[in-house]
């Protein structure tokens, strides 16, 4: 573990920005909220934040991205496209690092999705332990309040200094700069970081009343409880907000957009969400998840069960984005999961 003074970290970030080798992005404030965005200077960086509106997933799987370019003047010509911007991403919380680990599995599963993987490989992830905790977060219950790996560098705020844990050689290389003022951590500092990490566990207002390992069977058992799902989904707008802001949602739609010549254009993918009404609709009008309640249930099943079956992870990292951004306030996983848990013996 290393230690760096706060002003030296600022200098370091400014140097990375000036260096221009990779685009430097980090957490910035936007009105009363936070977002990941391109940094113009280190002063903009807010490492003391609760949660960002969208997760950093957008850097590996952008909201909209071109997969194929086509041209149809003579016959057809198609070419695969991947716009990769190498980036240094500063300020990722542990739950988002966990989500990125999960997404890596999804896109590395055969056949590999290079549009994601290449962007991911060319990025450097600099994590930061939470200082503020969103009132909606329950990462403590999901085992994602702190993390052992998944970052290239990990920062912990020690008042006037940051502790820097080096996770990978990519991280180490980034630190290999003559100008960088940094020293090895003292044993007390290592202990301080451990204490801070331990304390984070106790800082959550929301929690799951049980171990998340129970989610797969709990959800399976309640799949057929239609009244429960209908009751809870009654106010759902099918607006997809809970999908779009989620760091582990990855569904997408694909559409062609030609330019005005009508002879060339792009095939683009855009984030999609299983809460949207047409998600499972096919030509002729058949909709395999027609009811709001069916779609509502589907999202929870995905988070707590389906993806676990497929990839071995509970696909909710407890960031609380869905719950905080759902306007009718019906998307809180702890609310639903705890209700199911307390009803289970009835």
């Amino acid at each position, binding site marked *: 573990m290393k230690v760096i003074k706060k002003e030296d970290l600022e200098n370091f970030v400014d140097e990375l920005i000036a260096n221009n080798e990779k685009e430097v992005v980090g957490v910035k404030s936007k009105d009363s909220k936070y977002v990941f965005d391109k940094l113009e200077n280190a002063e903009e960086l807010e490492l003391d934040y609760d949660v960002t509106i969208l997760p950093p997933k957008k850097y590996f799987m952008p909201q909209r991205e071109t*997969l194929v370019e086509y041209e149809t003047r003579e016959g*057809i*010509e198609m070419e*695969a496209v991947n716009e990769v911007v190498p980036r240094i991403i500063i300020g990722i919380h542990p739950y988002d690092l966990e989500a990125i680990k999960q997404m890596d599995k999804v896109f590395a599963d055969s056949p590999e999705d290079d549009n994601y993987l290449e962007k991911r490989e060319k990025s450097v992830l600099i994590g930061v332990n939470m200082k503020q905790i969103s009132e909606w977060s329950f990462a403590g219950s999901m085992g994602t309040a702190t993390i052992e790996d998944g970052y290239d560098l990990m920062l912990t705020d020690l008042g006037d200094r940051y502790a820097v844990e080096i996770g990978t050689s990519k991280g180490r290389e980034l630190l290999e700069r003559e100008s960088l003022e940094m020293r090895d951590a003292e044993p007390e500092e290592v202990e301080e970081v451990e204490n801070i990490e331990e304390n984070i566990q106790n800082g959550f207002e929301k929690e799951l009343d049980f171990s998340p390992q129970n989610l797969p069977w709990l959800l399976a058992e309640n799949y057929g409880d239609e009244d429960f799902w209908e009751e809870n989904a009654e106010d759902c707008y099918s607006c997809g907000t809970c999908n779009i802001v989620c760091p582990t949602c990855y569904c*997408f739609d694909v559409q062609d957009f030609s330019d005005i010549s009508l002879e060339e254009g792009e095939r683009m993918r855009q984030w999609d969400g299983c809460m949207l009404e047409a998600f*499972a609709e096919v030509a002729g009008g058949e909709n395999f998840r027609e009811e709001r309640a069916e779609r509502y249930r*589907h999202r929870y*099943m995905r988070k707590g069960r389906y993806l676990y079956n497929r990839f071995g992870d509970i696909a909710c990292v407890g960031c609380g984005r869905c719950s905080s951004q759902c306007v009718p306030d019906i998307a809180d996983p702890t609310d639903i999961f705890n209700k199911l848990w307390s009803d289970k013996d009835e």
Partner: protein
Amino acid sequence: MNKKDSPYLPENATILSVEKMAEREKLFEIELDSGEQLGHDPGQFVEVSVPGVGEAPISISSSPTKEGNSFELCIRKVGNVTNVIHNLKEGDKIGIRGPYGEGFPVEELRGHDVIFIAGGLGIAPLRSLINYSLDNREEFEDIKILYGCRKPCELLYEDEVEEWRDMNNIDYRETVDECPDDVCWEGNVGVITTLIPGIDIDLDNSYTVVCGPPIMYRFVLQELKEKKVPDERIYLSLERRMKCGVGKCGHCQINGEKEELYVCQDGPVFNYDNIKDFEEAL
């Protein structure tokens, strides 16, 4: 990026011929511009692409035993992509990705009786297996084909059906839901399920392969149950919305209490025993 690395990049292909089979269906014979064979199994599908319009998953309707390098797709005109494909002519170019998915379990069927039950457009995917088994007739025991459509004019693959009617090494039966008075029709009139009671099924030695619109499955399965056909001896091909064909976009997923399946990778062909508990499957 290296072209081959993207699972989303189609290969160029050329339409060799187009045949109108019914009001809404056309048969397209297609060849990859690489000159290579598609290399599919019966029951698999491809993503057909019209640049500027989009992609649609379509079952490969020809058998891998078909001569030459080309393959056939039977496409019903129902929406955006399929409408535009219907306007294409011989010599026009399209894109193809695939073949994708799990097809019919040919190895498992070999050496057994096979009963094909097709409703409407369901004949399109089944035909790949029907023709495969007819081309390797000696490898299969009894073959029965039950084919139903709404009206006589909706019957697909008329020339081949004509041959099936005359073949004496298979048992071919057909039905239409209704027949207008001015049309000459010698087959049965009634829904497809009315054909099932009349056939002999050797329960220990046969497989039943079913393909048709969602509503048909429920009734056919009920009828097969009455005949005491074991669930694990029934195979079905399912249809879902698809955007990627390669297990990524999430659209084709079906859920049940126990498990989740992706129609594009785990299917489109499923053993009935494996999906019967899936509330969303049928």
